[in-house]
């Protein structure tokens, strides 16, 4: 909205955003081996969208990522996490015991960790973008310019 006339900012943001998204995915799925995991990946993924919203305006960002999709992601993450736990129960183990998700306990643990990290990442990403959009789409309170406020 306000940044239409800033070509440098727009071009560099366009260049950066794919790499930020890629880095977030790397952090998400490489969390087993190095620092990283669902929490960090979700935040970085959200940061990419927030950058997009800041540079290209909040309305076009809302076209890219509609509110319904965000809310579905928000719920889906928690459901995925709890669902993995319940799945373990259905297969005859304890809640959140991943060892029985596959034939080999190690495979099962790996699968379980991957899935719940995905759930965490989805929820964190959706929560952060939802919160940001909620703040950013506020209108200024009618008739109250912050500068003319009583001291």
């Amino acid at each position: 909205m306000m940044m239409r006339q800033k070509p440098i900012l727009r071009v560099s943001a366009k260049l950066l955003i794919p790499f930020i998204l890629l880095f977030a995915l790397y952090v998400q799925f490489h969390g087993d081996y190095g620092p990283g995991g669902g929490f960090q990946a979700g935040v970085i993924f959200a940061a990419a969208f927030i950058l997009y919203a800041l540079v290209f305006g909040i309305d076009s960002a809302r076209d890219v990522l509609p509110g319904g999709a965000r809310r579905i992601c928000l719920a889906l993450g928690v459901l995925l996490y709890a669902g993995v736990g319940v799945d373990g129960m259905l297969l005859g183990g304890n809640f959140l015991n991943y060892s029985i998700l596959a034939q080999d306990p190690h495979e099962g643990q790996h699968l379980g960790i991957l899935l719940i990290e995905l759930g965490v990442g989805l929820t964190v990403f959706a929560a952060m973008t939802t919160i940001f959009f909620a703040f950013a789409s506020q209108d200024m309170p009618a008739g109250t310019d912050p500068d003319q406020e009583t001291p």
Partner: protein
Amino acid sequence: MGILDHFNYWMVIVLMMAGLYTVISRGNLIKQVVGLNVFQVSVFVLYISMGKVSGGTAPILGEGITVYSNPLPHVLILTAIVVGVATTALALALVVRIRKAYGSIEEDDILKQENGS
């Protein structure tokens, strides 16, 4: 073993008390949220300091490394940070609502309006 054994903990206390003082004494709601954040980070530093082992390395298993720092506080604080920012967002949302309802984010102005009307 010397005077520096507890230096980290002392700095944590200084930060913690700075945050606490801000929360108690300042009337501005945003300032109080920032004070609460400072307090929060000081608690994080306390946990992470306790988890450190001299000569240890980051808790990622590797060849030929025997001493690791304690991973448990790291896990606790990792989740605490993200939850912290979520609750901060909730607090800031409340501030925005209060500003809309009262036209001010100063505690004493709000109290005055409450008592006056």
